């Protein structure tokens, strides 16, 4: 009984206050308190390690607990002077570009397919990202099994259909190994890009398409003049984040090829891992990480300057 009255008056008063919700003085303090645990956690596990990587890159640590002498820029000159580093750098560039092209293409096709009306659409839109949610090691097992030289179905089909005279050792030569890991990684990632693109497409008002149809625009024109501009903001973010996630890919390459054969698939992350834990040169690996970090920072700054959508800038 006593409960009913305050609620109604409460609602009435809410109407008056709507739009200018009071900000109690305690809110600011509470805000900091709520955010603090996460920020401290990230400071301890990202910021601090980052700073200690810079420090480590000026020392001569081989395996943990040894060395520790200050050696100045020696690690940097060793890293920047080594062919292995620059070759890995080049492979990372090829990796990022090839993955970006393949995934964007596959993601657009997939998004356009899923955008159509069909029965089971809801289910398909959810389960299409299956390859992205399963552990990388499972992706690796799947593809080593599919592409195997004995018992692998891909080779069986290739030989049976007469496309190749004998089974292909996909991970046996440099070019085939490189192509295979790029395709496998793209297979893992394109569905995620597709569902994000799809969400972007669905946020474009249907009336725009209807109006364009009335004006007699072809499907291609509608795609080019309505869909693409409508996706500008999504594509901008996807481009930056996708590129940073893509250059970071380590486990799928390592588990498929260990960076081989003869370093053909050793991208920078593989190089950093291998230098630290197989060549036992932690400091040199830290120097390579710092160089990579600086390159990515420069890229991110340049990218946001050049590619930022106009409307976005006005909002910010």
């Amino acid at each position: 009984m006593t409960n009913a009255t305050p609620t109604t008056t409460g609602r009435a008063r809410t109407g008056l206050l709507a739009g200018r919700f009071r900000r109690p003085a305690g809110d600011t303090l509470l805000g900091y308190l709520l955010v603090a645990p996460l920020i401290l956690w990230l400071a301890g596990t990202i910021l601090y390690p980052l700073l200690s990587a810079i420090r480590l890159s000026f020392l001569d640590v081989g395996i943990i607990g040894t060395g520790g002498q200050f050696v100045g820029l020696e690690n940097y000159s060793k890293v920047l002077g080594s062919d292995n580093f620059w070759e890995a750098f080049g492979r990372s560039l090829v990796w990022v570009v090839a993955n970006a092209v393949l995934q964007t293409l596959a993601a657009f096709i997939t998004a356009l397919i899923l955008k159509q009306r069909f029965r089971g659409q809801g289910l398909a839109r959810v389960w299409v990202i299956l390859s992205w949610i399963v552990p990388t090691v499972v992706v690796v097992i799947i593809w080593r099994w599919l592409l195997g030289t004995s018992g692998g179905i891909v080779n069986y089909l290739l030989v049976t259909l007469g496309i190749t005279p004998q089974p292909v050792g996909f991970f046996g030569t440099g070019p085939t190994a490189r192509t295979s890991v790029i395709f496998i990684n793209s297979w893992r990632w394109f569905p995620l890009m597709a569902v994000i693109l799809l969400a972007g497409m669905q946020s474009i008002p249907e009336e725009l398409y209807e109006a364009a149809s009335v004006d007699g625009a072809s499907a291609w024109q509608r795609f080019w003049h309505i869909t693409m501009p409508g996706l500008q903001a999504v594509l901008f973010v996807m481009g930056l984040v996708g590129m940073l996630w893509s250059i970071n890919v380590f486990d799928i390459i390592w588990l498929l090829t260990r960076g081989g054969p003869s370093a053909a698939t050793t991208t920078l992350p593989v190089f950093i891992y291998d230098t630290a834990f197989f060549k036992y040169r932690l400091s040199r690996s830290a120097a390579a990480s710092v160089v990579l970090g600086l390159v990515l920072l420069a890229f991110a700054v340049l990218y946001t300057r050049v590619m930022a959508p106009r409307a976005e800038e006005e909002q910010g």
Partner: protein
Amino acid sequence: MTTDLAGLRRSLGVYLSVAVLLIVVIAPFYWIFTGSIKAPQEIIAQVPTLIPQSLTLEHYDHLLASSAFPRYLLNSTIIAALTMVITVVLASLAAYGIYRLRFPGSQFLFKIILVTYAFPSILLLVPLYGMLSQVGLIDSLWALVIVNVTFAAPFAVWMLQAFFRAVPYELEEAAALDGAGRLRVMLRITLPLTAPGIASIAIYAFITSWTEYMLASVLIISDANRTLPVGLAGIIGQYQVDWGLLLAGATLTTLPVLILFGLVGRNFVDGLTAGAIK
């Protein structure tokens, strides 16, 4: 007549394209699952069989009874569960603070979190290893919980954005006017209303932890503390690969993800995409 035919042709095209897409994405999973229940001689047969001709559970028996797989499964489950709980607590508190309270500096903190979710973890490999060995956490499951929370939490905060935005301010105002304190409003009203969002970040944290290989491969030394990805990678690396065992392992490793995704997959995809389009 002609429009009917065109419509038929069109819907045929739609279903055909969807079918091709599903084959590309789903068929490989069918292939490992059916492989895992085939007898060893059928697995390596020259002519692969689309439908298993033999049915055996021997690979699963071998995996669960006489390999270290159950141990890996237990370790991965412990780590993923702890990662999930810590990530959900840290991320939902921070999300409430950033999206609801709008205190001075909240936009700056939001930007920091955006930067950290795109941050390449490879840059942290060596220093995290150094740091965790200094504090004596090498070969400890806690080391992996710590790094997995770091990898999962920033993206989780970002995913929560859309869910928090969907809760009307009026509800909170009404509760506040009824005398409930901020903290009570948050715990009793706002967080329960963002339950689908919380569920999807929980899954995200679980999946992130379940998948992590790079740091698990260097932070864990003893076989008894290995996680599933490192343990399975060990089987792949053996001289003579036992495919039956490996396919059974891959199937069992995928199963928990499938179950969780089946429960709240839709929320998860909503969370993934809603933040991206604003």
